[in-house]
């Protein structure tokens, strides 16, 4: 053979990273992208730089999806979230590579992060049909009434994902929001958005209805501001906002009394979470029903 074997130098096919809105993968309506680099400054991709309009579109998609997702049975939501873990496991190598690039980790450390992330989905998948029993229940009121409190999802939740933990941190804040039946508009880590954008591809193939999770990449402050002020957003998780931005967003959120989860210091995302993130975006509904009375006679057995 006279031709040189060049298989090892095959030109790879780059991926065009896109936003995830309403179950579709649009580019930013603004046509903007920004350069994403690894921890050493090497170019990785051009990520879409979402605009205020993209944020508003995502809220519309999340609102549209809310009725179906919150109305699905808790068992069904658990099945769907578990499916996400299955799909993720199958694309483990890809995420190990992306997390290693994004966070400057060695391969084995990145692998541990991805494993913990898959396990986190499994943890929350199991919560969907248990949380109501843990935080709801009957109330022994002093009168002839059956009185029951049940948790219900708050609605559309804007999630400012953690900046540093681009994948485990991301899933740790998104999974509890949707496990309880909320829908989410997620602002990915500004510096390291690629794992979030790839997660969207997993969600799209995991039976998660379109619009339940919407993922936006770009400048955190630019996207989060219109979400915090949006009148059709019910709550906001400020996990990835710095102190100055968090205060600004909380002030904007007061305009329609969004539920606000302030940024909390997290030393170790691998620690088993408590209930706080699940209950942060739950409402309690209490319903009173008269029981009537059969009178004092009746069986004592």
């Amino acid at each position, binding site marked *: 053979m006279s031709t040189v074997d060049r298989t090892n130098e095959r030109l790879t096919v780059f991926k065009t990273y896109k936003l995830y809105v309403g179950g579709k993968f649009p580019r930013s309506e603004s046509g903007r992208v920004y350069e994403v680099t690894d921890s050493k400054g090497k170019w990785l991709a051009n990520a879409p730089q979402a605009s205020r309009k993209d944020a508003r579109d995502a809220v519309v998609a999340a609102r549209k999806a809310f009725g179906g997702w919150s109305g699905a049975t808790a068992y069904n939501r658990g099945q769907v979230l578990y499916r996400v873990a299955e799909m993720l496991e199958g694309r483990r190598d890809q995420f190990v590579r992306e997390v290693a690039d994004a966070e400057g980790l060695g391969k084995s450390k990145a692998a541990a992060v991805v494993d913990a992330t898959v396990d986190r989905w499994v943890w929350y998948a199991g919560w969907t049909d248990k949380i109501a029993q843990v935080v709801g229940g009957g109330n022994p*009121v002093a009168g002839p009434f059956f009185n029951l409190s049940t948790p219900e999802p708050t609605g559309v939740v804007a999630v400012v994902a953690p900046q540093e933990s681009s994948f485990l941190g991301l899933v740790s804040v998104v999974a509890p929001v949707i496990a309880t039946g909320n829908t989410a508009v997620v602002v990915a880590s500004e510096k390291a958005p690629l794992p979030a954008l790839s997660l969207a591809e997993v969600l799209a193939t995991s039976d998660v209805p379109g619009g339940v999770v919407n993922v936006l990449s770009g400048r955190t402050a630019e996207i989060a501001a219109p979400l915090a002020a949006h009148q059709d957003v019910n709550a906001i998780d400020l996990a990835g906002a710095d102190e100055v931005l968090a205060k600004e967003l909380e002030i904007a959120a*007061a305009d329609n009394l969004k539920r606000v989860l302030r940024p909390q210091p997290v030393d170790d995302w691998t620690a088993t979470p408590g209930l706080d993130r699940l209950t942060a975006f739950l409402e309690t509904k*209490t319903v009173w029903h008269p029981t009537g009375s059969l009178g004092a006679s009746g069986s004592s057995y």
Partner: protein
Amino acid sequence: MAKEKMTTAFEYAPAPESRSVVDIAPSYGLFIDGEFTEAADGKVFKTVSPSTEEVLSEVARAGAEDVERAVKAARKAFEKWSALPGSERAKYLFRIARIIQERSRELAVLETLDNGKPIKETRDADLPLVAAHFFYYAGWADKLDHAGFGANPRPLGVAGQVIPWNFPLLMLAWKIAPALATGNTVVLKPAETTPLSALFFADICRQAGLPKGVVNILPGYGDAGAALVAHPDVDKVAFTGSTAVGKEIARTVAGTRKKVTLELGGKGANIVFDDAPIDQAVEGIVTGIFFNQGQVCCAGSRLLVQESIHDELLDSLKRRLSTLRLGDPLDKNTDIGAINSAEQLARITTLADQGEAEGAERWSPACELPSSGYWFAPTLFTNVTQAHTIARDEIFGPVLSVLTFRTPDEAVAKANNTQYGLSAGIWTEKGSRILAVAGKLRAGVVWSNTFNKFDPTSPFGGYKESGFGREGGRHGLEAYLAPSSPEGKR
């Protein structure tokens, strides 16, 4: 259907409750660190009886300097109070509950004088609920490890609490009982038009031997409330009042460590289906909007009637309203008392006039209003659309807006078409419809075939702009405890 003749109310002889059970002093101070004291700047204000405009007492008016003193006292008391075994805190709260029961007639008369609501309500609703609330949370104080908030849950510190004038002592109980049970200390500001029952409560704290500084009471106006909410050494803010002030508070605490619960306005839908028992529904509608003159955040102020029974229901309702007795709040037969203040009366009047101007049809029963005091006749508006101001804004008065619907889906859509989400009512004989509709309503409390029921074990609070957090029940403890998750712990 032939129109029946309006029935007239029975004649009743006056049956006033005796004022002599309560001894109101000519002046009261602030209650700080276990002592009654004048305001630092010596300011005072008068509190009047809304039914007669008689001045009841002159009360010290707290300012920023007094807030400083009270927060300092509460901070100092926190160390020992939070370190007490829960069983000891419980016993203080049980003592308070018992003393309230012992003094309940005195407090009921006092509340009726200062607030203007009928003695029937203060005696049979407010006071029993106040005592029950303290009794309920007393029992939690030594059981917090089992409440589902992690092992050894911690109190937050100093709670700044601002309460409204519609249920002065009951709102105090809702705020103070869970705060103390969980080991927090309290600075509470009652409303400027109803400071007296909170000051009597201060005396109850003294009788109960509560350690100094655990409860501090600062009568005053909005400026004192704002100073309290903004105080850097306050760890927890609890507010019940208007949505506008609630939003201001949410902005004030932004970027701080302060935990906030807000219990705000409402525009509750009371939905009556065509199979509802009409007489019971009418009683529920009356309770929903005329209890406490409609000055209730969870009032059923929007009546949604299925179109097919609109005329029949309205006839019954009007007949019933004609029998309501408006007048002296101390009279045991009075159904409708006075509006709490001239300011609130002006607001109700403006909104009702606006309803008329926007084209809704106004109706009130023949009803003579007393010549002094603040009064507003029970009022119905029919031909109301969702666009009308009286269908959207909280009126906080005895004014009912009547709208119609044809299908359950339409009823739910209209009920949810509001910025608020506090309460709702459903009237139907069909069990599955109750559950289906209750499930779709975006409201924190839903009453089926009843309305305006309250209980210390039952969590209360709103969706959307009716606020956040719950008061009452196990849920009510969360507002006063630090987060339990590893992520939330520093």
